[in-house]
């Protein structure tokens, strides 16, 4: 056997590996806990059940470690490192993919994974102790050194994880990072102890392969999460982007292009013509000689496409919050084909600003104002469906001008829909509620407002339409028995009733 002085370096390595192994062990536990509380909520429950399961599994691991024969200690230690690295490294990504693609087994896989990791991690420290012990270190000295580094490693990770790792790397890459550390320990151990291990070469090769896989995973984890989104959307993703304001995803399946914002379907190219004809033409066809039009929201350029069909229109001002959205819809080929290059039309002025802010400072009046904002599902959006906001809109409407607002579904969210109508009335508008059937949305609601009370729905359209005609138009303004008006409060900024109605209405529809 080797002389005391030559054992020092390998021993130090083993102590260092205790430190790394302990950090990794805690890291996987934290990743699993954080992921479970992200996905399942109730973080106290998730964390405590995962920690419990993990600690118990570690106990099992310690127990099992006694079945490993003395002569295999080093080789088994390396195997365990590789296995821990592999399992732990892919844990976050695998769990996420499973959550995205399959509803059922998420919890079972989560706990199985946590248990397996716990067992393996539980074997590590007893093994290292035995290895060191076999190398004739003083026992009391050994226990104290191993445990010191064990706890130190845990401390370092418990601090790094919430402050740096989780926020900057994200969970998937954090897990891969620690996997890489485990595999690194394995590879280093093989190198340093190669003289004492049988089959050192094949172990080294295995370690290198695992290390390579984990490095690849680290580099590709962004792609993998994107791919797993497909599990959510079903279709091929042609564009996905997280902007400071929202997540934009465009999918395609045959000739069906779809846009999702934060996971909510905005349109499907199969039936968007229904939505946009209903949004635009009942207003514009009733305004002969309409010249200046304002669009709030509508960064997809589809409403603008319809407006541009009126030769009298001289200028469209389109105010959309997100530059990424209007850029996407003025550059991507399939999307500009869909909106007929509307955003590039010289008559269209695209302004990227918050509609609330823009209206406060804009000076001019418009003949028509088309409000195509996302549904009022947050306090921020709720403010753009409020009485003061509609008063601001009113100030920017010419005397005989018309405003139209997309206002969620009168069928699925009746309180929210009629709240928009009531609020518009409270702001001094005469209102003309109507609805249209858009297959991918269901029954959808809009409301027109004017100052004069003289609005009449068009009885014919000079322009050719794909769907709208005189009869459909007439029917749109009739609310059958199951969509009758309900009495609701207007949306006031100091209670934001609309956001509440919207939440409650849709909560009843989707569980």
């Amino acid at each position, binding site marked *: 056997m080797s002389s005391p002085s030559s054992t020092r370096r390998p021993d130090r390595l083993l102590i260092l590996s205790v430190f790394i192994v302990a950090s990794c062990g805690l890291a996987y536990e934290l990743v699993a806990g954080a992921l479970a509380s*992200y*996905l399942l909520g109730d973080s106290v429950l998730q964390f405590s059940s995962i920690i419990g399961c993990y600690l118990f599994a570690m106990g099992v691991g310690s127990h099992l470690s006694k079945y490993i024969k003395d002569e295999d200690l080093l080789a088994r230690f390396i195997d365990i490192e590789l296995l821990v690295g592999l399992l732990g490294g892919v844990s*976050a990504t695998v769990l*996420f993919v499973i*959550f*995205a693609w399959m*509803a059922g087994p998420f919890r079972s896989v989560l706990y199985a994974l946590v248990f397996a990791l716990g067992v393996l991690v539980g074997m590590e420290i007893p093994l290292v102790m035995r290895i060191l012990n076999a190398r004739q270190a003083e026992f009391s000295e050994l226990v104290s050194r191993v445990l010191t580094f064990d706890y130190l490693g845990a401390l370092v990770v418990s601090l790094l994880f919430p*402050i740096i790792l*989780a*926020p*900057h*790397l*994200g*969970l*998937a*890459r954090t897990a891969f990072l620690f996997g890489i550390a485990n595999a690194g320990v394995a590879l280093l151990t093989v190198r340093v102890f190669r003289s004492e291990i049988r089959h050192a070469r094949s172990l080294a090769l295995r370690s290198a392969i695992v290390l390579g896989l984990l490095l690849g995973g680290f580099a590709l*984890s*962004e792609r993998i*999460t994107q791919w797993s*989104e497909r599990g*959510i959307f079903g279709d091929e993703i042609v564009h996905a982007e*997280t902007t*400071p*304001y929202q*997540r934009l995803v465009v999918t395609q399946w045959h000739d069906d292009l779809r846009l*999702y914002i*934060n*996971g*909510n*379907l905005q349109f499907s190219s199969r039936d968007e013509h229904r939505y946009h004809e209903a949004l635009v033409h009942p207003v514009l066809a009733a305004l002969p000689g309409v010249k200046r039009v304002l669009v709030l929201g509508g960064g997809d350029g589809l409403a603008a496409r319809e407006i541009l069909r009126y030769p009298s229109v001289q200028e469209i001002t389109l105010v959309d*919050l997100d530059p990424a959205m209007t850029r996407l819809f003025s550059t991507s080929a399939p999307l500009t084909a869909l909106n007929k290059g509307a955003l590039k039309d010289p008559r269209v002025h695209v302004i990227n600003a*918050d*509609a*609330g*802010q823009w209206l*406060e400072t804009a000076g001019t009046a418009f003949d028509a104002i088309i409000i195509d*904002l996302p549904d009022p599902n947050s*306090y*921020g*959006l709720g*403010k*753009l469906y*409020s*009485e*003061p*906001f509609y008063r*601001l809109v009113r100030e920017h409407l010419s005397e005989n001008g018309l405003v139209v607002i997309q206002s969620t579904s009168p069928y699925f969210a009746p309180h929210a829909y009629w709240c928009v109508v009531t609020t518009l009335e409270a702001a001094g508008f005469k209102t003309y509620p109507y609805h249209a059937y858009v297959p991918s949305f269901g029954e959808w609601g809009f409301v027109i407002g004017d100052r004069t009370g003289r609005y009449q729905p068009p009885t014919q359209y000079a322009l050719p339409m794909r769907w709208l005609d005189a009869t459909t138009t007439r029917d749109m303004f009739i609310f059958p028995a199951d969509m009758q008006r309900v009495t609701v409060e207007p949306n*006031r*900024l*100091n*209670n*934001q009733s609309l956001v509440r109605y919207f939440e409650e209405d849709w909560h009843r529809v*989707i*569980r």
Partner: protein
Amino acid sequence: MNRRDFLKLSTLAGLTGCSGRLPWQGPPVTVNMPGMAWGHLLRDRLPTPNPTRERSVEVAILGSGVAGLFAGWRLAQAGFTDFCILGGPEPGGNTAGSVLAGIPCPTGAHYLPLPSMESIHVREMLADFGVLRGDPHAARPVYDESVLVHAPDERLFMAGKWQEGLVPQHGLDDMAREQIRRFFAEVARLRTERGADGRRAFVIPLVQSSSDPAFTGLADETFAVWLGRNGFTAPPLCWYLDYCCRDDYGEGIEQVSAWAGLHYFASRDGHAANAEDGTVLTWPEGLQPVARHLRERIGAVRWLEGMALRVSEHRHGVEVCCFDAARDEAFTLHAKRVIVAMPLHVAAHVVANLADFGFDKTRDLPASASWLVSNFLLDGFPPEPDVRQPLAWDNVIYGSQGLGWVVATHQWIRQAKPAQTVFTAYHALANLPPAVARAWLAKASPAELLELAGRDLKAAYGSGFQRYVQRVEITVRGHAMATPAPGFLNRPGIAALRAADRKILFAHADLSGLSVFEEAAWWGEQAARHVLT
């Protein structure tokens, strides 16, 4: 797409997200001490240049806090034109504000409760500004919605979680719950209670309250003693009431009188047609727009920069020696009457014959509390731990000595959160002898002030909050407001100044002894009425 899918998507950001900023040292801090240098110049009677010009007016208003501005507004409204208003060391006084990176924010008062029936003067002012629509005498007037505080208005951080509203709710034992219920029942009763003189027990303006000793007797003991005597001992209730007192009066339940503590709850009974009771009026920069409106109505031609050094009464009028520190120029104002609208501790140095009014400095001058108003300019909003309890206008930490923070961009009508915002943290240096607090403030380094100012924000967001802070502007108000301590209702000198109807009139919240907008405005109103009749 259903809820679960939506949840999955929000997780993606957590998995792949990467925000680029590193934790970094301390943000740059500016410390402002409005009026301090000028005030000490007066106190220490430092030499000033000889007057170089003179001006004569019918009425001179000395001071441009709420009281002075309100007096001027009322005069202008009544068609009285021959007057001027001297801004003093801090135009606007406690309603001043600031602008950080284009975001207006308060450096003092930030809200106005719905004015009660008795505060008709405030209602008339709000009607003049178009904030109150229709008849100012209506029981439930309509208010401009954009200045009614937007939802969500208040939340409390307790036991590691945010809860809606400021009254502690979650995790209370039965005793605390019962006492809270009983306390609110008691103040609801007091709200309609009348004294032997037929007046309501607690009214804003406070001089209209009943003088029945059954109630005014409450001004002789501390709120804490009264609470103990009435079996209100549960820590959550006591903390909440202490918070309310510190928030309104700058001192806690151990210092303020029971009368003042109850007045806070029982006097406010304003309603609105378009908001629930208890809603407040607020502007992004606090009450500064109100002061601005008043100032506009008064007119720039009547505005004078500078402060009064000496006010002396003569046979034919009043002579005021003034000093404009910005120009290093002194001038003299000759007026038939003056309205002294500065704090009493300043008036005591400035008004030569204050003792003639029956005011005894050592007996009648109220103790005053110190405040820290700290504006944190943030790059983005720190993440909220609970999506169901989003950032509110007013955010308070249970158990804290601070008063939480308000969000300057909360009232903006925006679809998305702005890229930058300002959190305004309030801290009254309560529970310290006032002189000790002021001595500490005068000596404290910017880093020490910052540590105190940022405590609540750290408690809520952890040290990660630092990453968002671009810049901090701390306003130190040494003599911010009079403390309504036991005995404050019957100071003979104060009563004398209220009643004064000579060439010198007085108007300031100090005449009420408790510092709220309606009270300051009330004394401005009274002084203007004396001039007009």
